[in-house]
């Protein structure tokens, strides 16, 4: 038998045949259920309320391979448990091989007879980024002699390496039903270096120079997931997850995508056709330069309560609908918070800079799926709430804002063509008692090219208009926040309209090309006029054009090399805000290597 295995080179098929060569006496196996008589009706009961399956098994054909039976003791290798059968057969793989049975990958229990599994994954994420942004010179020093204006030289670069190690201990069967308990810990280790051409870009202190090295050890996940109960014979379940855990509010991450601390009750019903979440989250402070959780700084005074439900095949098969209600309560109205580079982040250095608190209820509908051959992803949100003191308005304001986005796509063989549209309501009168600009809690939108797009990827500072950016890094909303990660939401903003088209082209199993072209404009620039004390600029932001390529040498996600380049061709509004022509084009170039174990 060993020889057969060795000769077969480890293929299951031949091993199975080898086992079948011997035909032990059937009488030795007394615990087997009695053989059904050929021709006798068999009744099989399945979970749920459906009718039992009744059929007549086919008559035994003596020419067939005999039914399996217990091996003779002398010829049997002892196997510690059913997961180790293959090991017992001599199939052994090195510990670093994730493709075959591996104790580090939860393929088999930690020790024989145990029902604890361990799953380790490690991802190395290497990023090179070059960009040119409108960049101010330092107001109080000269980076170089002869700088006589506000706008300086805008090239910047970042190199960042993040190692994310995820470790799970899972108790349960892992294969046939949800695990009973999962304990997960995901530390991340980041080192990064950034460079800029002007002082006071990377540090508030202009004397600290134009290169910055930083590192961070972060905790991206640390939770216990308790399987509370099975709610149906189909393993619909209720589960409770406590700790730092990932959460995404909708299919595209428009409103809240984060790894906050929280308590989340979730589960499924009706054979997984319904999914629900009931949760409370408290955001974790972020490290400024890596964007990762900074446990050392503690939790923020920012809670989000979530109730949502997903319904598969609604309104049509192939399309999933979600309704959601989220309440974001921010109480960061005491004192100031500076980021690790020394810039005031909460409250934002804008308006009267008085600290403030707010609560917002997000009511949303999200859908994702396809109707026939058309793929559709939609998102609709209303944000209703109250800001107890908007610093631009200098007064309390009621929040009344809305958001809509849709992506329509269709596959033509190996080409997917996409159409995108997004509307973010803007604020018309910063000084009235209504804030009508939409903002998210923590967006991370996978939309319109996502981080390959200039507008989404880069944070363009509102130079001369306070310590805020037109949109956040990895954010699409024109929300005038100090920082997407560390700042507060701001509902007095210019809003955004985006229309665009894109394509994903799968050239080969190794190569994918992407392209996106979007036109962007503000909804209302009054607030930009107020913060810059200039006539409100034109609404036109411009055209965002980007191309990208992705190479997967092993046709898997274990090694992915991607690169993208984007340029923002400024419209009239941007020209009225920045020196968009003199210092060269606004661009964003990324190269990213992902290695996953």
């Amino acid at each position: 038998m060993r020889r057969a295995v060795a000769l077969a080179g480890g293929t299951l098929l031949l091993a199975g045949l080898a086992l079948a060569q011997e035909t032990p006496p059937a009488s030795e196996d007394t615990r087997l259920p009695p053989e059904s008589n050929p021709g006798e009706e068999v009744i099989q009961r399945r979970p749920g309320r459906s009718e039992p399956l009744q059929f007549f098994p086919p008559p035994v054909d003596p020419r067939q391979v005999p039914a399996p039976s217990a091996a003779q003791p002398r010829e049997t290798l002892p196997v510690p448990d059913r997961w180790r059968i293959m090991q017992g057969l001599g199939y052994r793989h090195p510990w670093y091989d994730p493709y075959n049975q591996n104790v580090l990958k939860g393929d088999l229990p930690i020790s024989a007879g145990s029902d604890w599994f361990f799953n380790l994954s490690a991802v190395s994420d290497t990023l090179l980024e070059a960009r040119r942004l409108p960049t101010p010179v330092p107001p109080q020093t000269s980076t170089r002699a002869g700088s006589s204006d506000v706008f300086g030289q805008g090239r910047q670069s970042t190199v960042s390496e993040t190692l994310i190690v995820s470790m799970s201990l899972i108790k349960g069967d892992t294969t046939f039903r949800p695990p009973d308990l999962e304990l997960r810990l995901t530390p991340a280790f980041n080192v990064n270096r950034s460079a800029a051409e002007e002082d006071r870009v990377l540090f508030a202190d202009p004397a600290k120079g134009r290169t910055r090295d930083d590192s961070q050890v972060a905790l991206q996940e640390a939770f216990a997931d308790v399987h509370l109960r099975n709610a149906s014979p189909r393993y619909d379940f209720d589960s409770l997850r406590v700790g730092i855990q990932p959460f995404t509010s909708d299919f595209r991450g428009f409103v809240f995508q984060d790894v906050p601390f929280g308590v989340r009750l979730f589960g499924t019903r009706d054979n997984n056709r319904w999914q629900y979440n009931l949760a409370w989250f408290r955001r974790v402070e972020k490290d400024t330069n890596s964007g990762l959780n900074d446990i050392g700084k503690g939790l923020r005074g920012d809670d989000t309560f979530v109730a949502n439900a997903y319904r598969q095949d609604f309104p049509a098969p192939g399309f999933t609908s979600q309704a959601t209600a989220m309440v974001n309560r921010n109480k960061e109205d005491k004192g100031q918070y500076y980021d690790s580079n020394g810039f005031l982040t909460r409250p934002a250095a804008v308006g009267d800079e008085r600290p403030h608190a707010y609560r917002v209820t997000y009511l949303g509908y999200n859908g994702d799926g396809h109707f026939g051959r058309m793929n559709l992803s939609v998102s609709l949100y209303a944000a209703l709430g109250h800001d107890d003191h908007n610093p631009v308005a200098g007064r309390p304001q009621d929040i009344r804002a809305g958001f809509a986005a849709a992506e329509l796509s269709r596959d033509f063989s190996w080409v997917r063509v996409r159409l995108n549209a997004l509307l973010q309501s803007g604020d018309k009168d910063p000084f009235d008692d209504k804030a009508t600009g939409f903002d998210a809690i923590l967006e991370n939108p996978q939309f319109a090219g996502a981080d390959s797009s200039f507008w989404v990827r880069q944070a363009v500072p509102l130079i001369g208009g306070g310590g805020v950016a037109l949109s956040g890094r990895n954010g699409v909303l024109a929300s005038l926040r100090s920082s997407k990660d560390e700042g507060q939401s701001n509902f007095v903003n210019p809003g955004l309209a985006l229309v665009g088209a894109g394509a994903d082209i799968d050239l080969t199993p190794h190569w994918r090309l992407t392209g996106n072209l979007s036109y962007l404009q503000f909804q209302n620039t009054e607030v930009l006029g107020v913060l810059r004390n200039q006539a409100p600029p034109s609404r036109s932001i411009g055209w965002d054009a980007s191309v990208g390529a992705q190479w997967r040498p092993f046709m898997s996600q274990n090694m992915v090399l991607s690169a993208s380049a984007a340029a923002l061709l400024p419209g009239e509004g941007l020209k009225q805000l920045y020196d968009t022509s003199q210092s060269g084009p606004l661009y964003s170039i990324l190269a990213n290597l992902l290695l996953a174990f």
Partner: protein
Amino acid sequence: MPADGRLAAARALVLVAAAALGCAGSSGSGPPCAPNCLSSANFLSAADVQRVIAQGVGEAQARGAAATIAVVDRVGNVLAVFQMTGAAPNAAIAGGRGVAGGLEGVTAPSTLAAIAKAITGAYLSSWGNAFSSRTAGQIVQENFNPGEAQAPSGPLYGVQFSQLSCSDVNTNAAQGSVGPKRSPLGLSADPGGLPLYKNGAVVGGVGVIADGVYGIDLNVFDVDQDTDELIAVAGSAGFAPPEDIRGERITANGHAFRFVDSESLASNPASAPAFAVLPGALVAVPGYVGAAVGTGVAFGTAASGYRPATTPALAALGAFTLVDSGDAERFPPTAGAGAGALTASEVSRILEEGLKVAQRARAQIRRPLGSAAEVSIVVVDLNGDILGLARTPDAPLFGTDVAAQKARGALLFSLANAAALIAALPAPVAGYVPAFAAFVGAGGSLDGGTAWSTRALGNLHRPMYPDGIGGTPAGPLSRPLASWSPFNVGFQLDLVQAQFLAGVGGSTATGCSGLSVATNGIQIFPGGLPIYRSGVLIGAAGVSGDGVDQDDMVAFLALSNSGLGNAPSAMRADQLSPQGSGLRYVQCPQSPFNGSTEQNVCAGL
């Protein structure tokens, strides 16, 4: 849940659709007083003055306070000072930082404090902006905003030492009704000084002191119930500025200005007691006002000291000029003294080009959005004598004196004999010369080798270097942070302190410093530039009235466009990097011109 979801979706759609239909806000319309901003009816009558005082006293009574209240017109004529029975005769100057030195702890008569606060409200305001002494306090501290760590200092850092009782630009009571009048304590940073408006035009100011402390608000993030300010708010009822031009709606670097903190009055100004029965009395303040209620002048008339220029080239640009009580222009374009000096036509050209730049420039401190900057422009010769002064009609009045101070600050430090002039002054002023040279290193010997702008001087006249950055040493012209306050800043104050204190004692003698080139003192925020001909210093220009970047740009482009050009690049202070941090020579603003996409307009000039 699905029903809720549909409702939410419907709401969101409505909101988004509504937002999509919105359009950019309007801009470019005139100030709220238009078209009657210069109406001869825009002045404070004696009855108005009485009403302001009575409303203020009514609020003071309701608060159990005993106030001293001053009312001035726009050009600083003191129209009345009323002291309630029991009002403290004096106020202590206190920056609240627990430091000693400078003016800290000096006792000043409450009457002078009230006048200074009233003048501050009037002088900082215009048809397009309403600022108060609270605003002044917000923009003269070591960070802007005060309390925002790592932020550079207030944009008008040092402006508190302008309009001094010894200024040769500002007038005193002996010169009749023409302004701008001097302020006995300079500009005030103590809340309780507000502008007064009629028909949308600024016509004066009211100043109140009741708390015995002539100080400054160090925490701008809370909302104070300031007695002085609340009395002033009550006093200004009926004369309040249009809401749209109040400081809270105006931003610099995105930071909104403070106008008043609280308007929660304890009294109803509409039912204020009659002036005749007020508890207290009008008081005479020698050099400023008698014990009577006067009538204000209408700004823009010859009696105000400000009227349209008659020099053709300047008149063609709609410029205003200063006149004396005989309606003679005080500072028409004039040639400088000495060989190679500025000619009268060169002076005129600088003023004209400056006005043209200002008229195109995006105002930083005015509404409606899209307004043009309004500034005062001064040119001085090597002696510091004013060769010409022109202004756009509505430039805030404080800039008249400040423009000259800026020109003289840039001049003083750029002179070949600057070190000798300063070293000849008594301590502690003389000591700044070696400290300056040691800190700046090469280029810091004050021997005429470096062209010093007031922006660059300001970099070195802050209690932190680089400006606003914590944990750094003070600049060589500044007091160290540990002993610094807005009443103890260093060189700028030390230069004029003796005469300032004399002014606190009632002196209105002209001449603030021991230096003839800086008769009204110097200024240490941007807008002052030296003027060279072929690398030889021949004078200086100063601009004041709008955002500091606008002031810088008007001065810088005025010199460039006039044909004289700016200081040779190699001489400019931005060639120097004291302590490893480069100085700034000039900074022109973002989006400098209305209706244009031009940017970086000062590059290479």
